[in-house]
């Protein structure tokens, strides 16, 4: 793990102007009995919810994904959650938390966005505004502003933490944000390398051959990748998954350490890239499996570093949209709609898969293509903000998620 770079006072004040807030911080932290923490993790690139949490009990599951379907008695058996769903075997920590009622999964969920652009989808997810392009502030930041000053979660001090050299939009806004940048930067992901390689193959063969050589070298250098047996192209094996795992755990673990401090921030946000599994997805032993494993490690790091405050914590793992229900021609999935959200933390009333299952028959899919979303993700997020951070419900509908009056907060998520 790299050396922790504590935010300096100067960094804390960037973009805030709230010079007075710092001196008051310790006093504000425990004004009420409970002292909630909320960490939001954005999976950028759109997660295949069906590859993460498989509907093994659905009669149409096998016909949909065929021999790529995650099953309970597969070579790598999926972990049974209830009669319908099973968790990807890459996530034993989440499974343990689920069994301990400290994790819940929301399935067939989506934001109001119904198109297929990552950028626009991320804007909608993070801004909390139903139309794309609203990038001024994020719902988590506005939720802080909706809280009373001096309350448990002081909205006017540095109560939010952004991880990464760019603060995720979800936490950007008028409420001051402190930032932490991991010292070891993650180099371009295998996915980015492969996309660039593909671009070069069509436009610049010389650059293509140089880049390919580098990718091969990196693959030799790294830990043996769990290659997709279907893929005969060695460049598609994800090199450097060990580095990805280390980065995820480092970033998430650090966020947890700050959130756990009595006078630290109460909410945080970070993004993990690499989820656009349009080729060689490998739910059981490839890209997706590796990434979910890295995410599972990040959750473990959060739990460990939160210490006692884990019991007052909710981690929400969300993504801009899902992926197609069917596998595409390159053994991946294309941009789809419905997906899953993972919730973890000691504050949850967990141990449930929350779903209004739409079914997987062609007519039940959205546009005969995507898992149909039946739960508005905003309902889940509003439920967490109302019951965990105690944001007033009317403000949730107006300021935090504008024009969402008809989306009722989901109750009973936290204990």
């Amino acid at each position, binding site marked *: 793990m790299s050396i922790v770079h504590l935010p300096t006072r100067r960094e804390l004040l960037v973009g805030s102007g709230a010079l007075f807030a710092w001196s008051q911080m310790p006093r504000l932290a425990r004004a009420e009995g409970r002292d909630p923490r909320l960490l939001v993790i954005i999976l950028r690139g759109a997660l295949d919810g069906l590859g993460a949490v498989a509907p093994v009990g659905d009669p149409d599951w096998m016909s949909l994904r065929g021999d790529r379907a995650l099953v309970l008695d597969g070579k790598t058996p999926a972990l049974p959650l209830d009669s319908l769903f099973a968790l990807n075997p890459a996530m034993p920590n989440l499974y343990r938390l689920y069994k301990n009622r400290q994790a819940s999964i929301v399935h067939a969920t989506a934001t109001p966005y119904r198109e297929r652009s990552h950028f626009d989808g*991320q804007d909608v997810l993070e801004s909390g505004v139903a139309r794309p392009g609203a990038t001024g502030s994020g719902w988590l930041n506005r939720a802080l502003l909706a809280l009373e000053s001096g309350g448990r979660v002081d909205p006017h001090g540095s109560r939010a933490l952004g991880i990464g050299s760019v603060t995720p939009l979800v936490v950007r806004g008028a409420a001051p944000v402190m930032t932490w940048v991991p010292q070891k*930067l993650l*180099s*371009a992901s295998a996915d980015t390398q492969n*996309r*660039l390689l593909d671009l070069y193959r069509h*436009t610049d063969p010389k*650059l293509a051959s*140089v880049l390919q050589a580098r990718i091969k070298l990196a693959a030799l250098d790294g830990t043996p990748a769990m290659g997709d047996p279907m893929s005969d192209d060695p460049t598609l094996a994800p090199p450097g998954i060990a580095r990805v795992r280390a980065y995820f755990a480092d970033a998430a673990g650090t966020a947890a350490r700050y959130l756990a401090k009595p006078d630290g921030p109460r909410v945080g946000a970070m993004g993990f890239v690499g989820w656009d599994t349009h080729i060689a997805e490998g739910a059981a032993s490839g890209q997706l499996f590796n990434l979910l494993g890295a995410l599972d490690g990040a959750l473990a790091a959060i739990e460990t570093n939160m210490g006692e405050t884990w019991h007052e914590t909710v981690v929400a793992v969300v993504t801009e949209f899902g992926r197609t229900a069917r596998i595409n021609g390159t053994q991946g999935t294309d941009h789809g709609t419905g997906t899953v959200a993972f919730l973890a933390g000691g504050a949850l009333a967990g141990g449930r898969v929350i779903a209004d299952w739409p079914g997987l028959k062609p007519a039940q899919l959205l546009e005969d293509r995507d898992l149909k979303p039946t739960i508005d993700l905003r309902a889940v997020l509003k439920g967490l903000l109302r019951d965990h951070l105690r944001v007033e419900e009317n403000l949730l509908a107006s300021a935090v998620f504008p024009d969402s009056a008809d989306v009722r907060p989901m109750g009973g998520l936290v204990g």
Partner: protein
Amino acid sequence: MSNSAKAEAVLALHRFGMGPRPGSIAAVATDPRGALIAELDRPLALSAAAAQPSSARAYRTVADANARRTARAKQAQQQAKKQQMAAAPTVADDQSQAEAQTQGKIQGQGQEKDAAEMAAKKAAEAIPDPGRPIYLQEAKLRTEAALAAEIGFAERLVWFWSNHFCVSANKIQSMSGAYEREAIRTNALGRFVDLLQAVEGHPAMLFYLDNLESMGANSTAGINRSRGLNENFAREIMELHTLGVRTGYTQDDVISFANVLTGWTLVPPGADPQHGGEFTFNPRLHEPGGQTVLGKRYEQEDVEQGRAVLRDLAAHPATATHVATKLARHFVADEPPPVLVEQMAKTFRDTEGDLKQVAIAMVSSDEAWRGPPSKLKRPSEWVVGMIRATGITQVDPVRYTGGQELLGEGLWRPSAPKGYPDDEASWIDGVGRRLDVANYFAERVTGITDPQAIIDDVFASEISSEVKQAVGRAESRQQALALLFMSADFQRR
């Protein structure tokens, strides 16, 4: 604006400038060639340079710090030795004890030496090197000039000449920026002979190419001392700066020219607090008498002898060809069209080395525009192009110069007097490193810039459909930006 006008504007900005920035394509599209030429008439000074120390002052500042450092180190060393002495054993009684103590004493001496050296090192390090902040500020000024330029053709010419007449900040960190400002920037659009005289007479160059101590065998200093002639400076001037390698000069020419240049040195910094570090001609080092260089006899006395040789080297036809070839290779193609090179060399000869006219001849020639964008940008050009595309106008020099070093083109730090190479083969293997840098940069700017806006506004949509598609399908803005910056459209010119 027609498509071909836009395409030529994009090419103008990439091939001859620093890359497009928001609005620049529209600004030059009506007449890209005219816009390039017009930029050569604008002043090339750096607005904020007045606050920067001259090369001589920078040199004195560093020399002063070094002197203080040495003094402190010596003091600390002596103090440490004294303490050790006080703690050391004294007299031995019998043989075995004496032996044991001899052993101990040897060991003790070793420790003593180590401790004293450590103390000296620590004391010296307490005085920071003033050269680095000067270097960083110069780097900042220079980079921001490239970011601020509408096209950046004139800045590219400064960069070109700075590399052609390179010095290395690894040897003279404090003077590298001032050298470029004083010798290169002021002459990059003037006559080659003036540029040459300014460069070869600059303290940084004399220091870098080791001419400070060079002395003629028959000079006053040469007779008194065992040291002698240094051929390096003369050789590099002929091989790299003027005629070019294998253009007919002999080893005898090199030695004669080196003798001509003896005495070209600087005022010792300690000797003269007003002028220390400035160029001076020291007659005590100069080889007396006439010299024959390239078949011509130079009977001039003192510094004029060297200036006369430089004048002739500047006017030599081989120099015209060498300079024209290097310029065309840098801007147009690794193997530049011979017609273009000859047009530029002819202009050089016809105008007595008017560098602005040579630059105009280049961009006025259809040959310079005809080929596909085959040049792989050097890391420095690529990085500045990337920053320009985002509209950012200021840089953190620590991060910026660090990035340049990571990419193998540390600012003013070439590993040899030949400067950084210009061919694709030298740089293409660094593409993987570029990807990491692009990815990192993209992460940093993803909140303030939009990949689609760069395609639309910065490139006026003049970018291949494959890139548009890759950017549109990227999984995040960061990835989209990284792919855009890494595309051939962005890396080649």
